[in-house]
């Protein structure tokens, strides 16, 4: 059964950030990637699922229950969110940042118990970043911060993990590390993952399902092999692509002829 069911979701903010008629499902243990150009509504959709933005129409169900019925702490117990990296002002120890994931489980006037530190150490060793535990969070690299934020989200014990462009600022090695970890975690811990991404190759490699977005709508949804082809990519990005097949892996290449491609909506 689907963990998350999205029905006829619509959102708009003063005519901007519009998304229409979004319908799809997320299953436990599967990574779903939203792929589409800038401004196609990926982040808006993510924020709706996450509950920051209230949908104008339609509904999102988590285990059959509408998200709107959940309070903020309840939401945080079910949905873990890995925001885009930013540097906080105060240099907390990495282990403390990870333990902050337990916040929805503790009251305003108490501190996390020792057992939360124990499970935080288990999770960071699972992610292979135990060596960072005592280092200041502000002094570690972007890739490491991304993994720390992921560990923090996992501390929330979520059923669904949301990642907004988790690899936007990472070098290729860190990118592979983070994305492999996302896939491994989803499969091992039976968590549903929804993330946004820009590189079609990464999306093909690391997701079970891909949703293609264009102008606020999902135009196709399914297995990477089914969804990604030259025509579909050309349709959403409005530029020509070539797809190579290497040992049963699709590799997306692009042609450098952006100018020759006619785009009636964007002429200057």
């Amino acid at each position: 059964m689907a963990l998350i069911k999205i029905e006829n979701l619509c959102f708009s903010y003063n005519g901007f950030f519009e998304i229409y008629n979004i319908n799809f499902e997320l299953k436990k243990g599967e990574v779903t990637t939203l792929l589409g150009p800038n401004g196609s509504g990926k982040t808006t959709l993510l924020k709706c699922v996450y509950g920051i933005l209230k949908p104008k129409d339609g509904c999102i169900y988590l285990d059959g229950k509408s998200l709107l019925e959940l309070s903020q702490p309840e939401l945080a117990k079910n949905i873990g969110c890995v925001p885009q990296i930013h540097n906080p002002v105060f240099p907390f120890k990495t282990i403390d940042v990870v333990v902050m994931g337990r916040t929805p489980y503790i009251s305003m006037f108490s501190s996390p118990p020792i057992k939360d530190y124990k499970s935080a150490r288990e999770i960071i060793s699972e992610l292979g970043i135990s060596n960072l535990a005592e280092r200041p969070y502000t002094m570690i690299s972007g890739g490491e911060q991304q993994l720390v934020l992921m560990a923090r989200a996992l501390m929330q014990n979520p059923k669904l993990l949301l990642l907004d462009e988790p690899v936007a600022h990472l070098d290729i090695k860190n990118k592979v590390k983070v994305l492999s970890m996302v896939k491994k975690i989803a499969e091992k811990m039976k968590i549903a993952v929804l993330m946004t991404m820009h590189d079609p190759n990464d999306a093909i490699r690391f997701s079970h399902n891909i949703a293609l977005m264009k102008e606020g709508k999902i135009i196709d949804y399914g297995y990477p092999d089914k969804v990604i082809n030259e025509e579909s990519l050309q349709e959403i990005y409005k530029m020509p692509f070539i797809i190579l097949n290497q040992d049963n892996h699709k590799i997306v290449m692009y042609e450098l002829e952006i100018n020759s491609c006619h785009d009636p909506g964007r002429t200057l």
Partner: protein
Amino acid sequence: MALNNMSAIMQHSTTRSNNKLFRVKYYMILISPLPIAAVAILFGRYSILFPLSSTDLFILGGVRLPRVLMTMMTGAALSIAGASLQSTLRNPLASPYILGLSQGAAFGAALAMIVLPYSQFMLPVMAFIFGLIAITITCMLARIRGTFSNLAVVLSGVIVAGVFTAFLSIVKLIADPYSLSGLVFWTMGGFYRVDWGKILIVAPGLVTGFIILSLMGWRLNVLSMGEEDAKSLGVNVRRDTIIVVSLSALVCALAIAVSGIVAWVGLIIPQMVRGIIGPDNRYIIPASLAFGASFLLIVDTLCRSLFTFEVPVSIITTLVAAPYFVLLLRKIGGGWR
């Protein structure tokens, strides 16, 4: 493998010795007010000689003890408010004085002193109301596109502080010469007017504020990570910010109502504490409380015993804080990391 083990063990042992050092520092700060208070009570222009005469007892119990207690509570209040506001607004420069909270509270208290009919209870109440108004305006002005930008917080504070200082000047203008001199001295900060009656009025509010803010250390950590992060961790950011800001306004206003404006303490004490024991608010809040109490107690004891006349505390706190800030500025090179 063996090498790995070695380094793991070494890392573990440095962590443990660090922890030990941390504990020593933390508990030293926590107990520091006790010996300092003992010295401060026995110290002054009038020498206390054993065995104690009845005059000695009156000076100790009726003059110095309330003064020492109020000084400690004022230092604690300003520091704890500074530390809490710095975390909530994610701004290392936030403090009651910079955000206009002190000036607002001072204006409210001045109104109660000069304009309204005299009442011991009105003074702290008016200080709290206007302190809260001032810091609410600052926060509203500083909130641009859903976040508190560092520059906007400081600039809004400058604006609000300026306006309430002007209002205070108006009160000074209409005050009669007799009240005026008292008012002017009071705005420079001082503990010479403290008696048990005033302490009994403000102490319950102060102690309540101290306890609640001390318990909110972990929540302050989460809030200091930023609004979106805190929300994604299930925190009701708006509600919690209002709680922290109101409690900070409460403790500051109560302290100011008795002691007048004491500058800089709320800014430098949390900074110093953070430098000594690190960024974790679970420790910063109690440590700021103790360290602020100790610091202001030392300053006030110097103020009343250095010369034959009493020096207003703000003069000394500013003269101590300015060089410290210059050092800090040099050390961090203009950035905050």
